[in-house]
């Protein structure tokens, strides 16, 4: 009985804990972070067990409240959504580990408010990955969005303005998606994704279906900051508090990419997506090549580490969208693998940023001076994250990029391949610039203790431990990516088709 409800527990644990945290945290602030960790530990455990079972016994569906699928809201765990569920839960767990410390520093006395929103956000993200109902997806999308607006607005300087811009853009995105759902409902009379997917093939070719498809895709692109629609992302993620950006930067865009895959393959079908409107697929791959090149170039112009990372995220979104739209197996495999890897890399780099901010107050490039001497562990982990972002072999980033490039070559999309290579070179320039500043500069300012021995000034353990863990995970996932692809991603893709 208990094992049958794993899915409900995974989603409910953070949601219930959000209320507990809000009530208890007012009086006992020190309990907040451990309680949040506990609930996310439960989620991670449940989703791991669930993924193992799905891989063994095949997809399972959970009917909320016992209402049968076409009418009731259905939660579906297939290998792909199981993988996303584990990814979201695990990343949130690691992010929370560090968020406790940085939140205590940045907003003393308001931890319970922060963590209430934070846990509701995680709960919404978990539900997004498994929902099988198109309208429910909209509601969850808005739950995650509304909590994110609040979490970003808690930040410094221009955070409130950035959050307002995000509210406007996020609402446009979600409303476009809702409009698409409306058209599909008129056409099919159903809101269940699998049910729509069953009914829709008879109606292919109609203008209304194409309109619905376009609205849903554009809505998702706004949400994931696909290049021309990315305007809200850099400021929102830069000025958000460290605790917020550590969670939302790895997860929000990646979950949106996953949702795009859901829309393309579960609601519509590969035949519709790729072959019904022949030119569209090439156009989108071109657009993502453009996205990668422009976003990478914009990243070059930044002088603040966090802001540079946000532009890299925009470029990475281009990687994944392009990979999915290559319409062949290596491209698709690369895109899904890159969702996992990119979430880990972004987490690693934002954790490093959060540790630097904790000690230096901000993370402009000059704040990195001499950090290899004063914060060796942080910078070691940062280096692994940077190598992974560039795509240096033993780290995870290399393998997904390899699949993406193979896919690009197979599809003959040379612009996309060139954009990937260009972006890797730009990333190398970007990160080696920081590594150089951190390694060679600032000898005369920092680091002279007794007898010239360097003065260690490492960030607190709660920030360094998850960072080192993530860096190790990057290498482990990189070495195990063959296993990951064979045992999870390939079955997941077969199930999609």
């Amino acid at each position, binding site marked *: 009985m208990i094992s049958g409800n794993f899915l409900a527990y995974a989603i409910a644990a953070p949601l219930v804990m959000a209320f507990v945290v809000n009530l208890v945290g007012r009086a006992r602030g020190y309990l907040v972070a451990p309680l949040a960790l506990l609930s996310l530990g439960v989620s991670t455990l449940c989703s791991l067990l669930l993924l193992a079972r799905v891989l063994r016994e095949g997809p399972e569906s959970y009917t909320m409240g016992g209402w049968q699928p076409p009418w009731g809201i259905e939660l579906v765990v297939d290998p792909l959504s199981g993988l996303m569920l584990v990814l979201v839960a695990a990343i949130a767990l690691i992010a929370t580990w560090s968020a406790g410390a940085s939140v205590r520093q940045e907003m003393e006395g308001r931890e319970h408010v922060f963590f209430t929103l934070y846990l509701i956000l995680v709960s919404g993200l978990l539900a997004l990955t498994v929902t099988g109902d198109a309208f429910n997806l*909209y509601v969850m999308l808005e739950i995650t969005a509304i909590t994110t607006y609040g979490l970003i607005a808690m930040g410094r300087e221009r955070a409130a303005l950035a959050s307002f811009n995000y*509210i406007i853009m996020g*609402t*446009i995105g979600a409303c476009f998606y809702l409009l698409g759902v409306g058209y599909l409902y008129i056409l099919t009379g159903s809101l269940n994704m699998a049910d729509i997917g069953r009914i829709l093939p008879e109606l292919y070719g109609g203008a209304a279906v194409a309109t619905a498809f376009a609205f849903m895709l554009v809505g998702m692109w706004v949400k994931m900051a696909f290049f021309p629609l990315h305007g809200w992302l850099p400021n929102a993620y830069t000025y958000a508090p460290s605790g917020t950006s550590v969670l939302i930067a790895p997860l929000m865009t990646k979950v949106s990419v996953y949702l795009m895959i859901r829309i393309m393959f579960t609601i519509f079908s590969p035949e519709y997506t790729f072959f019904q409107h022949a030119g569209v697929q090439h156009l989108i791959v071109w657009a993502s090549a453009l996205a990668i090149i422009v976003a990478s170039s914009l990243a070059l112009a930044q002088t603040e580490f966090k802001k540079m990372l946000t532009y890299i995220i925009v470029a990475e979104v281009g990687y994944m969208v392009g990979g999915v739209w290559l319409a062949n197996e290596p491209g698709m495999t690369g895109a899904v693998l890159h969702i996992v890897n990119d979430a880990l890399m972004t987490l690693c780099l934002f954790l490093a940023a959060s540790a630097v901010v904790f000690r230096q107050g901000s993370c402009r490039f000059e704040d990195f001076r001499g950090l290899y001497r004063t914060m060796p562990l942080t910078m070691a982990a940062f280096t692994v994250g940077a190598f992974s972002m560039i795509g240096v072999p033993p780290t995870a980033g290399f393998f997904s990029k390899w699949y993406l490039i193979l896919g690009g070559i197979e599809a003959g999309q040379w612009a996309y391949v060139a954009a990937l290579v260009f972006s890797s070179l730009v990333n190398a320039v970007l990160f080696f610039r920081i590594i150089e500043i951190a390694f060679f500069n600032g000898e005369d300012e920092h680091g002279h203790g007794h007898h010239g021995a360097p003065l260690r000034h490492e960030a607190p353990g709660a920030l360094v431990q998850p960072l080192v863990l993530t860096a190790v995970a990057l290498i482990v996932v990189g070495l195990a990516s063959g296993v990951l692809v064979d045992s999870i991603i390939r079955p997941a893709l077969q199930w999609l088709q």
Partner: protein
Amino acid sequence: MEGLLGEIVAKYNYWIYVVLMMIGFYAMIGKRNLVKKLIGMNIFQTAIILFFVSTGVKRDAGLAIVDKELALAGAIDVATVVNPLPHVLMLTAIVVGVSVTGVALAVMQRIHREHGTLEEDEILEKIGR
């Protein structure tokens, strides 16, 4: 030309929603005052709500309160009952809209406290971009 007019009149509810949506969209993108942007956002959301509600409409149909026994026996003509589902969905969407508006107003209050104005141009000038 007449064909187009006939088309517009026959589906006037959809045309109204499109016009409303465009008004809201223009206000969100084009206006420089944050309150006006927010009002534009509300118009935009309302347009979509109207669109959904109008999909459930049937001519000469009654309320969707039916006897379960009769319904199971198939004794109810579907054409006499409006589809209640879009209305129910839109209740949720209205709640979402209200929440977003609330958050936006709160954020706006913080902006006003920090910068002393709600004109986007003036704020950007003060920040010095």
